C-alpha cells in the first residue's frame, strides 16, 4: 500500500482526447518526494529544451504535494509546473485552497496535461470517472464564474474547480489559474492552460488517503496545532505586524499597512511615500476593509485566516488573499477602495496581481513620456483610475496596445523600442518583481533575488529575520526559543548582527554566513513545495511550526519513507538542482542571475561577485551557475551530467566558466 500519496498520476492528452491512469514508482518519491520534486523530474525527462512554452509538447502538471490530503495542518498546496511563456524557464507557481486534497481523495497525485485541444474543454475528474467535456459555453467567462457554472452543470456542489479566465484563454503572459481563494499566478501558467484549450479542471474525490504510522503522525499534527496556538498568543516583538505572527501572511486581517505603503514603491515601482500612513489614511482604509470584508477565511485544514471574502458595492463578491490587497492601489497611486474593486475584475479575468498592476503603470509611464503615443492609446480615459480599468480590459482582450502589454514589461519594452527598456526596470529573468527600491545592498537578499528560480522573493525568503534587532538584549530574547534553526551557528549569526557599525550591511553577515542563511531559507521553501505545505506555516514566517527537525518525522510516519534531516536535505538539494538543470538546459546562465539594477542605490560589485561565487560553490555549481559533474553524481543525477556533456553545456575535463559570461556580473 502507498501512504500519503496515491501512487497514480492521470495522463491527459488533449490532442488525442485520451486519458490514462499510470502507476508511479515509489523509488521516485523517495528521491524527489513529490509535488515540485517529482514535477521537476517529469519535466526534465519529457520536456526537452527545444520545446516552446506554447508547443503541444509542453506539459502542464497539476500536482498535490506529498502530504496533501493527510491531516497535516496547512498542507493543501497544488503545485503547477510548466515552461513559462514569459521567462521561457520552468515555472512552478502554486495555490492553496481546496483542490490538491480533492485530487488525492479522487485517487491521483498529479494530472499531467499534454497536447492541445482544438476546442475549449474542461476536465472532470470524479473518482474513477474522468472525462474531457466541452467548454465552448464557458468561453470568455470569468474564472470564479466558471467555477460556479461547472459545479452547477455537474450538479456537484462539492467539486473543486481550478479555472482560467479570459486572460488565460488569450494567452496573456501573466495569466493565472484561479481556484476560489487561491491562485497560481506567477510565470504565466494560465496562458499555457489557455494555449492547451483547457478552461478548467474540476475534481471530486471520496476515497481515503492512508497514513503509514497513524499514532505517531497524529501526535506530530497535534504538536503543530499546539505550537500554532503558542505563536498566536506570542507575536514576535519588534517586527512589522505581518511578520509577527504566522500565515502567508494574514494581510486581510491586519489593518496596519504602514510598512507596505511607506517602504514599497508606488506607481511603476517609482515613488516612495515615506509619510503616507497618516491617522486619516489608517482610519479610511480600515473602514474600507471592514465594510468590504464579509469574513476571514482559510484554506483546507488550516486555522490561519489569510484570505477574505470581499464584497464591494456594485461588483460580485470574490475572495482575496495576501498582497494583492495593495498592488493595484499602489500601482495606480490610489486608495484601498479602488484596489479592492479592480482586483475583483482582475480575479475574474485571471491575472497575476504582481505583474498586472506593474504592466499597467509601466504603460502609463511610457505614455507620459511620449514613448507610447496618443495613437497607441486611442480611447484612453482621462481619469486615472478609469485608465487602469481600460488598460486591464485591453490587455486581457489583447486589443490594440493591450496585445503588446499582455506579454509583460520585458517583452513589451522590446517590441515598443524607443527606450521603453528603461521603464521595464523591475524584472528578474524577464519577470516583474515586488515594487521595492532600497538604499543599502542587502547581501542575503542579493543572493535570493539572483539565484531564486521561483523568481518571486516572497517564495524564497523567510525564517531568518529580514533586519537585525537594535539591541543585543532583544536579539538574545529572540534566539532563546528559536529551535527551528538547522544549526546552532545561525543563532550566533543573528546575535552578532547589528544595525550599524562593523557587523552591519553590506559586509555582515559575511559572505559565508549569507550563503548558509540563503541555503537554509531556500531549502525550506523547496521542501514545502514538494510536501504541499503552505509556506505561511513553514518557510515564510519567523519561528514556524514546521521545520527541518519535525519534517523528517512527518514524512516517515506519514508516507512511510525512512527519512532523517540529512536525507531530507539531500532530497531537497536533488530536486532543487534538477530545477536548475532544466533552466540551464534552456539557456539560463550567470548573466541572468541579478536583481534589478536599481534595486539598491548602494551597490558593491566586488562583494556581489564574491557572494555569487561562494554561493555557487556551496550549491555545487560552477562559476556559470551550472551544476558540476561531481555534485550531480553525488545527488544521483548522473543522467543530467550525461545530457549536459552531450549538449556541450559541461565539458568532460573542465567545469570552469567561460570568461565572457562571468564578467557580466556585478555591473
Amino acid at each position, binding site marked *: 500500500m502507498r501512504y500519503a500519496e496515491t501512487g497514480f498520476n492521470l495522463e491527459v492528452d488533449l490532442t488525442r482526447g485520451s486519458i490514462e491512469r499510470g502507476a508511479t514508482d515509489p523509488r521516485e518519491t523517495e528521491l524527489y518526494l513529490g509535488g515540485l520534486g517529482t514535477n521537476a523530474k517529469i519535466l526534465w525527462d519529457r520536456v526537452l529544451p527545444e520545446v516552446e512554452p506554447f508547443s503541444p509538447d509542453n506539459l502542464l502538471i497539476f500536482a498535490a504535494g506529498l502530504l496533501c490530503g*493527510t491531516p497535516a495542518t496547512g498542507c493543501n498546496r497544488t503545485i503547477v509546473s510548466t515552461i513559462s511563456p514569459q521567462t521561457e524557464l520552468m515555472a512552478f507557481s502554486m495555490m492553496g485552497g481546496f483542490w490538491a486534497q480533492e485530487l488525492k481523495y479522487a485517487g491521483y497525485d498529479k494530472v499531467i496535461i499534454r497536447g492541445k485541444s482544438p476546442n475549449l474543454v474542461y476536465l472532470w475528474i470524479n473518482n474513477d470517472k474522468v472525462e474531457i467535456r466541452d467548454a465552448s459555453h464557458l468561453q470568455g467567462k470569468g474564472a470564479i464564474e466558471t467555477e460556479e457554472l461547472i459545479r452547477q452543470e455537474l450538479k456537484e456542489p462539492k467539486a473543486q474547480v481550478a479555472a482560467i479566465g479570459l486572460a488565460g484563454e488569450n494567452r496573456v503572459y501573466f495569466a493565472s489559474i484561479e481556484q476560489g481563494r487561491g491562485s497560481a499566478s506567477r510565470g504565466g501558467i494560465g496562458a499555457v492552460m489557455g494555449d492547451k484549450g483547457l478552461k478548467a479542471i474540476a475534481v471530486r474525490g471520496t476515497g481515503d*488517503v492512508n497514513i503509514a504510522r497513524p499514532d505517531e503522525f497524529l501526535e506530530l499534527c497535534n504538536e503543530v496545532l499546539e505550537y500554532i496556538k503558542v505563536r498566536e498568543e506570542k507575536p514576535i516583538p519588534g517586527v512589522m505586524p505581518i511578520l509577527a505572527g504566522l500565515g502567508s501572511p494574514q494581510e486581510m486581517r491586519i489593518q496596519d499597512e504602514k510598512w507596505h505603503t511607506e517602504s514599497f514603491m508606488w506607481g511603476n515601482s517609482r515613488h516612495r511615500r515615506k509619510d503616507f500612513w497618516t491617522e486619516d489614511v489608517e482610519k479610511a482604509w480600515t473602514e474600507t476593509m471592514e465594510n468590504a470584508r464579509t469574513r476571514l477565511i482559510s484554506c483546507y485544514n488550516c486555522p490561519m485566516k489569510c484570505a477574505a471574502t470581499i464584497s464591494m458595492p456594485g461588483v460580485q463578491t470574490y475572495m482575496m488573499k495576501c498582497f494583492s490587497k495593495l498592488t493595484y492601489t499602489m500601482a495606480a497611486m490610489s486608495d484601498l477602495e479602488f484596489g479592492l474593486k479592480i482586483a475583483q475584475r482582475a480575479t475574474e479575468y485571471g491575472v497575476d496581481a504582481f505583474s498586472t498592476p506593474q504592466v499597467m503603470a509601466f504603460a502609463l509611464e511610457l505614455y507620459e513620456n511620449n514613448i507610447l503615443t496618443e495613437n497607441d492609446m486611442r480611447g484612453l480615459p482621462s481619469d486615472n483610475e478609469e485608465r487602469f480599468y481600460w488598460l486591464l480590459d485591453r490587455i486581457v482582450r489583447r486589443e490594440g496596445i493591450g496585445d503588446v502589454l499582455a506579454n509583460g514589461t520585458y517583452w513589451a519594452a522590446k517590441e515598443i523600442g524607443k527606450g521603453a527598456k528603461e521603464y521595464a526596470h523591475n524584472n528578474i529573468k524577464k519577470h516583474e518583481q515586488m515594487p521595492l527600491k532600497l538604499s543599502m545592498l542587502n547581501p542575503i537578499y542579493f543572493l535570493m533575488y539572483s539565484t531564486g528560480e521561483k523568481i518571486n522573493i516572497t517564495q524564497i525568503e523567510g525564517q531568518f529575520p529580514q533586519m537585525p534587532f537594535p539591541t543585543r538584549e532583544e536579539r538574545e530574547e529572540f534566539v532563546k526559543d528559536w529551535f527551528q534553526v538547522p544549526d546552532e551557528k545561525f543563532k550566533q549569526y543573528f546575535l552578532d548582527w547589528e544595525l550599524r557599525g562593523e557587523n552591519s550591511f553590506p559586509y555582515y553577515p559575511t559572505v559565508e554566513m549569507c550563503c548558509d542563511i540563503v541555503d537554509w531559507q531556500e531549502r525550506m521553501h523547496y521542501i514545502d513545495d514538494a510536501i504541499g505545505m503552505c509556506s505561511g506555516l513553514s518557510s515564510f514566517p519567523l519561528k514556524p511550526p514546521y521545520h527541518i527537525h519535525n519534517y523528517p518525522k512527518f514524512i516517515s510516519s506519514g508516507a512511510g519513507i525512512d527519512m532523517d534531516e540529512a536525507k531530507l536535505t539531500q532530497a531537497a538539494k536533488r530536486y532543487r538542482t534538477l530545477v536548475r538543470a532544466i533552466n540551464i538546459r534552456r539557456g539560463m546562465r550567470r548573466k541572468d542571475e541579478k536583481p534589478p539594477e536599481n534595486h539598491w542605490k548602494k551597490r558593491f560589485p566586488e562583494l556581489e561577485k564574491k557572494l555569487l561565487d561562494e554561493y555557487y560553490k556551496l550549491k555545487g555549481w560552477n562559476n556559470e551557475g551550472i551544476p558540476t559533474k561531481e555534485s550531480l553524481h553525488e545527488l544521483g543525477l548522473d543522467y543530467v551530467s550525461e545530457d549536459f556533456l552531450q549538449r556541450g553545456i559541461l565539458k568532460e575535463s573542465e567545469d570552469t566558466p567561460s570568461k565572457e559570461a562571468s564578467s557580466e556580473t556585478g555591473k
Partner: protein
Amino acid sequence: MQKGETVVREKKKKTVKIIKVDLDKCNGCRACEVACSAFHSSPKYSSNNPARSRIRVIHEPLRDVYVPIRAGDYTPAECTGRHTYTINEKEYDECSFCGVSCPSRDVFKEPDSGLPLKCDMCESDPPLAEPMCVQWCLADALTYEEREEEAEEEEKREEMEIGLESLANKYGLQKLMDTIARMSISKKGLEHKVKEED
C-alpha cells in the same frame, strides 16, 4: 404502569454532551472533517477522508454560508417541503442545518456502502477530553460543553412504550406478545443451559 409510581422513583442525573456551533467564527477550513474522519478510521487515524466524516461544513463562500453540521439519525423518508431561512440577510435552506442522513442528499453516508453515518461524540476508551472536531477547531467555531441534567427514569420507560406501541401497531399486539414470550423462554433456556455447563 400504575399511577403514582413515579413519585417514589428517584431522579437520576445524566451527562449531556453538547457541541456548540458559532457560525460567525467558522472560517470554512474543514479541519473538523479531517479530524473526524481520521478518528473514525480503523485503525484509528490510519486514513483520512472527509467523505466519511460525521461532521460537514456546508460551505458556500460567495454567499457567506458556513455551517458545520453533525450527523444525526437516519431517516428513510425525505422532507416534503423545504424551508428557507433568512438570518442576518443571508439565506439558508433547511438542509444547511439538518444533520439527518436521508435519501435526498449524499451527506452522512459511507461513500462505499451508502450506509448512514452518525456522530458518536468520539466515544472511546479512554475517553477524549473533547471530541476531535472541537479539538481541531482553532477558530473556536465549535466548542464542547458537558451539562448535568436531571432525568427521570420514567422517561426511559415511556420511550420504550412508544417503541413497543409502534411495533404493536405494525405487527399487532398479539404477535408482539408472542414474540416477547418466545424471546424470554429462549433466553431462560439459554441461562439454564449455561448454568448446567457451569
